């Protein structure tokens, strides 16, 4: 467990206030004191500068009517026009709503599922059984989206196995579950769980294995049953990993798997299934407008940043873990 750091006065040598004004001085002191650390970090920071920051001039495309022939620096500047086109679409709100709903559903179901799986596997006694289930559950991750979607359609269309199964429960006629916006959302999210639950649980399995065995022993001595052990040792043990991944997941709330939606949706359920990614894809078919796609991409990035920062802040406030 990470100890909560207490507020301490600045170490000797540093200026007390951490503001920008004291940055040069503090940085100089820090560099001198931790020269070794900075030295080994230097190539890594340089890598980021070259391979991640240098290409960021491409973001400028969002403010241009990008013309490939003229390139990034000579294409006509259109300011916020691309953004305006997106925001002024009569479907803007619907797209945001649908994207958010799918993102949140995935957060609510898709995020805890691998944790639950890891915990369930953790309760198994037979090592062979545990390893087998673990390995098998990560198989769907490797099957391509196209083939998976093909199978999904087979199963949930009218006459398909799952649709028929539902009829058994609810009665009525076997319907195409992809023909209804609400059932589409469930099919989308649950199939996502099926596809990623095993692969996603790997990271939690690793976190579980890092828990100090002594803690369990101590708990047993204190008379804790399995349930108490779960609550007081296991969960706190994996909590930092869970929170960090949750914060990351929050930031990708808007990036739902649009390639999968494209394979499953139809105009009949645009009302619930049309998301930012699929809409931009359709715009792309009509007109290859790089600027427009870039603007939507940048909008997504900004939203992701806001979500990341705020969930990180919330997490810092209420728990001991956070990204930074």
């Amino acid at each position, binding site marked *: *467990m*990470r100890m909560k*750091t207490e507020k301490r006065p600045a170490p000797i040598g*540093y200026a007390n206030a951490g503001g920008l004004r004291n940055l040069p001085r*503090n*940085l100089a002191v820090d560099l001198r004191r*931790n020269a070794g650390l900075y030295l080994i*970090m230097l*190539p*890594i*920071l340089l*890598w*980021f500068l070259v*391979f991640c920051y240098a*290409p*960021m001039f*491409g*973001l400028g495309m969002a403010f241009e009517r990008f013309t490939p022939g003229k390139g*990034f620096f000579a294409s006509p500047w259109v300011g916020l026009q691309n953004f305006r086109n997106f925001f002024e679409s009569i479907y803007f709100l619907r797209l945001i709503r649908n994207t958010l709903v799918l993102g949140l559903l995935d957060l609510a179901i898709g995020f805890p599922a691998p944790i639950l*799986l890891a915990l*369930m*596997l953790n309760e*198994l*006694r037979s090592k062979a059984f545990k390893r*087998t289930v*673990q*390995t098998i*559950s*990560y*198989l*769907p991750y*490797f*099957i*391509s989206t196209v*083939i*998976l979607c093909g*199978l999904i359609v*087979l199963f949930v269309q009218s006459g398909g196995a799952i649709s028929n199964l539902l009829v058994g429960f609810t009665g009525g006629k076997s319907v195409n579950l992809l023909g209804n916006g609400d059932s589409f959302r469930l099919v989308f999210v649950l199939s996502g769980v*099926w596809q990623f639950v*095993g692969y996603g649980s*790997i*990271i939690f*399995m*690793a*976190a*579980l*294995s*890092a828990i*100090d*065995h*002594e803690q369990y022993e101590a708990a047993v001595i204190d008379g804790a049953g*399995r349930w108490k052990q779960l609550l007081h040792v296991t969960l706190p*043990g994996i909590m*930092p*990993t869970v929170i960090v991944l949750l914060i*990351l997941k929050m*930031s990708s709330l808007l990036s739902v798997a649009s390639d999968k939606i494209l394979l499953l949706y139809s105009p009949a359920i645009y009302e619930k299934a049309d998301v930012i990614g699929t809409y931009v894809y359709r715009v792309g078919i009509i007109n290859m407008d790089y600027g427009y796609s870039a603007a939507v*991409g940048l909008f997504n990035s900004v939203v992701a940043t806001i979500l990341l920062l705020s969930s990180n802040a919330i997490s810092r406030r209420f728990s001991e873990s956070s*990204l*930074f």
Partner: protein
Amino acid sequence: MIAGKDSFSRLLFRTVNATLLIALGVACLLPLLHVIMASFSEPAKTLAYGGFILWPLGKPTLNGYKILLQYKNVWSGYANTLFYIVAQCLITGTLVFVASYVVTRKRLRYRNAMMAFMMFTMLFNGGMIPSYMVVRYLGLLDTYGAMLIPSAIGVFFIIILKTAIQGIPESLEESARIDGASAFTIMFRILLPLTKATFAVILLFVAVGKWNEWFSALIYLPTAKDKYPLQMFMREILIRNNDISNPNEVANNMQTYKTLVKYCAIVASTLPILLIYPFVQKYFVQGVMIGSIKG
């Protein structure tokens, strides 16, 4: 542990738990089984069949694999991919470890600033064309470096490893330092063994990612076909075999043959990577030796 110790509710829980896991296992096995069985089925039957294929349809056939093996490039693809995986694991593993070590040093005043600097790139990126231009400018096109250097670091991995390192009690490091351990000793004798499960997961993710990667080869290896990873060749085979845009080239019996090769290609390009997970699992041993290190 002895089952007899279990209370009734515990037994009930274990039964339900095992049943659910078996159900999940079956659900997860089905699609793979479908693909494997389809790769041995008569392709026409596959096309006409609407459902999970659980046994070879019609007379089992190896034709798909025979056709696949005609593409001699497949072997060089396997070799290249293997090389990329090993090299990438070494490079990424080292860099991620170093970065995670640095950003978890409390005495570093700007560790969070560095973290933010790196994380920013997770949220914003310049897109395909600018990245290509940078790689070209550095003269990396058509080199092995083009496949390894632009993908050298993953911020996500740094975050994961950083979290794992932060989970190690500080007292452990402090006592080591008091005993006169160098930074090097701390890194390799304490941090690495204690985060080995997470580290193994990171390497697994790197390996799986590398195994599936083709896009950077598509744009960064414009002519160097001898450096193509496996998936590039697989994709080439599939491209040819999905060419519905050219109906005049679609001879009468072609569609069926394409279907078969498609499934075989998936099996051939998926199975090997599936096999590495069990090797990673051995690092997931409950209760690592914090005690032993302490002792």
